[in-house]
């Protein structure tokens, strides 16, 4: 069956450093979404990617969908303390709504 991995599980960075999280699937994804969950909060929608090779930017955040639509990444440039939280990808896995395991980002001021 389909396997999707979100890596890394944790990331500790100094404020100002960059951060990247990846979702990698063994099979083609029709589309993928990214959410952010602040500590103690609920997930908040960030972006949806649909097209092969798609790249979308939101200020310091860059989202990519791989050419084969098996991989996606979220990159944050020059992290700030407001970026703290867990970032999840969401996709259809085996025809079921599935969230990735998440990458927890902590910032060292």
């Amino acid at each position, binding site marked *: 069956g389909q396997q999707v991995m979100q890596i890394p599980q944790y990331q500790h960075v100094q404020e100002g450093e960059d951060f990247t999280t990846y979702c990698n699937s063994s099979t083609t994804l*029709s*589309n*993928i*979404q990214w959410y952010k969950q602040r500590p103690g*909060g*609920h*997930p*908040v*929608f960030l972006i*949806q990617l649909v097209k092969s090779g798609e790249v979308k930017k939101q200020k310091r955040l860059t989202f990519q969908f791989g050419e084969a639509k098996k991989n996606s990444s979220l990159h944050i440039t020059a992290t700030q303390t407001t970026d703290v939280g867990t970032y*999840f990808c*969401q*996709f*259809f896995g085996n*025809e*079921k*709504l*599935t*969230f*990735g*395991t*998440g990458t927890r980002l902590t910032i060292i001021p």
Partner: protein
Amino acid sequence: GAGVSQSPSNKVTEKGKDVELRCDPISGHTALYWYRQRLGQGLEFLIYFQGNSAPDKSGLPSDRFSAERTGESVSTLTIQRTQQEDSAVYLCASSLRGTSGGALVEQYFGPGTRLTVT
């Protein structure tokens, strides 16, 4: 406008008791979802309602879990004979339209209900 609301925000119950969790979606949103999030873990899909279609119950972990939705409004998630492993935050989300043909849609989440089974 008002977002998704859930009640209660916290619920402590004894093992073996039944609990009922409530979700009020955003007005006009046709789709509603329930997820479970254990401490420090990801979101686990439970059930999905879309309009008048039969709900997708594929994520319910056991027959102790059930959910209902009245039309396109409030939904209740019921857990019977609660067990300690049911302790988690239960999150509800709604979306303007449903997922079809594998197309994801933006989901708006409520604040969750933290359930503790003692």
